[in-house]
C-alpha cells in the first residue's frame, strides 16, 4: 500500500485520531487566532472606507468569510457523510456530525451580519431575495441534520440517517451560490475570485483573504475538538478510553 493510503488507514482508527487531533489542536487554535487578529487589524484600520457604502462596508470582513464557511462546512459534512454511508467508516460519521453545528454557527453569523448590513444599504433587515432565502434554507438544513442526529438513540444509526439527509440537502448549495446569477437579486454578485481578477482593491482584499484563511483554520480546530469528544463518547466502552481516565477509585479490583 502506498504510504499516504496507509496513513489514512491509520487515521481512521479512533484512538490514533484522538491522539493525532490532540497534538494538532493547540497549533490550529493559535494559527487561527493570530491570522484572525491580523485580518481584523487590516479590516478595521488599514482598509479604506468604501466610496459608496462608507464604513458600513467593513461588515464584509465578517460576512463574507462566514458565508463562504457556511457553504464549505456543508460540503465537508456531505462529503464525509457520503464516505460514512458507502464505506461505513466510523470516523467519517463523527466528522460529518461534528461539522454540522460549526456550519450552523457560520450560517447564523452570515444571516445576522447580512441583516445588519442590509439595513443601512438596502433599507431593510430582511427581504425574500433568492440568496437570502436559500441561505435561510441552509440554516434549516443544518438544524434538520442536527435534530435528526439527536432524535435517534443509537449513535451510529443516528449518524448514518443524518448523513443521508445531508446528502439529500446538497441540492441547496448550488442554489445559494448561483442564485445571484440565475435570478436578478438585491444581493451583491460575485466580486471576489481566486482565479480571475477580483473587482476589489488590493488594500481591501488582503484582510478578506486573511480572514477567510483564519476561519478555515478555526473550522478545522473546532472540528477536531468536537470529534475528540464525540469519539470519547462513542468508544466509552473501549480499553483505550479507560486507559485515558484516572483509574477508577472503586479500585478493589
Amino acid at each position: 500500500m502506498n504510504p499516504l493510503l496507509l496513513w489514512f488507514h491509520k487515521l481512521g482508527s479512533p484512538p490514533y485520531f484522538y491522539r493525532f487531533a490532540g497534538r494538532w489542536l493547540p497549533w490550529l487554535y493559535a494559527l487561527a487566532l493570530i491570522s484572525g487578529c491580523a485580518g481584523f487589524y487590516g479590516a478595521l484600520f488599514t482598509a479604506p472606507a468604501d466610496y459608496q457604502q462608507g464604513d458600513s462596508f467593513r461588515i464584509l470582513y465578517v460576512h463574507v468569510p462566514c458565508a463562504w464557511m457556511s457553504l464549505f462546512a456543508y460540503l465537508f459534512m456531505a462529503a464525509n457523510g457520503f464516505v460514512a454511508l458507502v464505506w461505513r467508516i466510523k470516523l467519517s460519521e463523527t466528522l460529518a456530525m461534528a461539522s454540522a453545528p460549526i456550519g450552523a454557527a457560520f450560517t447564523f453569523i452570515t444571516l445576522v451580519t447580512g441583516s445588519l448590513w442590509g439595513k443601512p444599504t438596502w433599507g431593510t433587515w430582511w427581504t425574500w431575495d433568492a440568496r437570502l432565502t436559500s441561505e435561510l434554507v441552509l440554516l434549516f438544513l443544518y438544524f434538520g441534520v442536527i435534530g435528526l442526529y439527536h432524535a435517534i438513540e443509537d449513535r451510529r444509526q443516528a449518524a448514518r440517517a443524518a448523513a443521508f439527509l445531508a446528502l439529500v440537502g446538497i441540492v441547496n448549495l448550488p442554489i445559494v451560490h448561483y442564485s445571484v446569477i440565475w435570478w436578478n437579486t438585491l444581493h451583491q454578485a460575485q466580486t471576489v475570485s481566486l482565479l480571475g481578477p477580483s473587482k476589489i482593491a488590493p488594500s481591501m482584499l488582503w484582510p478578506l483573504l486573511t480572514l477567510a484563511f483564519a476561519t478555515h483554520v478555526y473550522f478545522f480546530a473546532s472540528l477536531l475538538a468536537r470529534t475528540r469528544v464525540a469519539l470519547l463518547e462513542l468508544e466509552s466502552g473501549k480499553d483505550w478510553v479507560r486507559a485515558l481516565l484516572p483509574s477508577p477509585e472503586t479500585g478493589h479490583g
Partner: protein
Amino acid sequence: MPHSETESLPLLQAQSLCFARNDEAIFGPLDFELRPGDVVLIEGDNGSGKTTLLKVLSGLLEPSSGNVLLHGVPLTLAKLSHQVALLGHLPGLKLELSALENLRFATGMGGIRPGITPRLALASVGLEGYGDVPLRTLSAGQRKRVALARLLLVPAALWLLDEPYANLDREGIELVNRLLDNHAHRGGAALITSHGAYAFTSGMPRRIALRPAA
C-alpha cells in the same frame, strides 16, 4: 420440497456473534448452527438479550462482530434472506382488519404453502368463527394465535419466534409445540426464546443459554 440439497449445509450458522449497543456488550461471542429439523430454545433472564439476538439473526440489527450465515451465505443488510419468518413481540397485524384479511395480505406478500388456505389455517389454531371480526376485538391471546396461523401459511424454512408462549393459555402452548414439531418434520428449523417460566408439555431438545456479557 427441495430440501435434499440443503441437507448438507446448515440452515443457519452463527460464528462468534457479538452485539453491542453504544459499545456496551449485550451478548458475548455465540457459536451455533441449525440444521433442518432442529428446534432450539434460547433461554435467558430478563434483559439477557434474547429479543436482540433474534433481531440480529433476522438481519434487522447488525452484529457488532461475527457473522450470520444462511445456507452458507453471509447475511448482509443490503441482501436480507427471505427464507426467514420472524415473529416478534409485535405481531405485524392490522387491528382494523379481520383475521382473514390479515392472512390474505400475508400470503399475497410472501406466497403460500401448497394445500392450505387462510381459513384452514385459522381453524387449525382454534379460531374458527373469528375470521371476520376486526382483530381489535380479540384478546391478547387470540391475536397471538392469528400470528401463528400466518406462520402456517407462508413458506419459510427458518422460524425465529420471540416468546411464542407469552399470552397463551395451556392449550395455546400445546398448539405451538405441535406447530414446531410439524415444521421440524417438514425439514424446517426454528429458534424460539423463553425465560423458562412456562410449564412446557414437551422438553426442548437443545438449549442455548444467554448470560449477561459484562
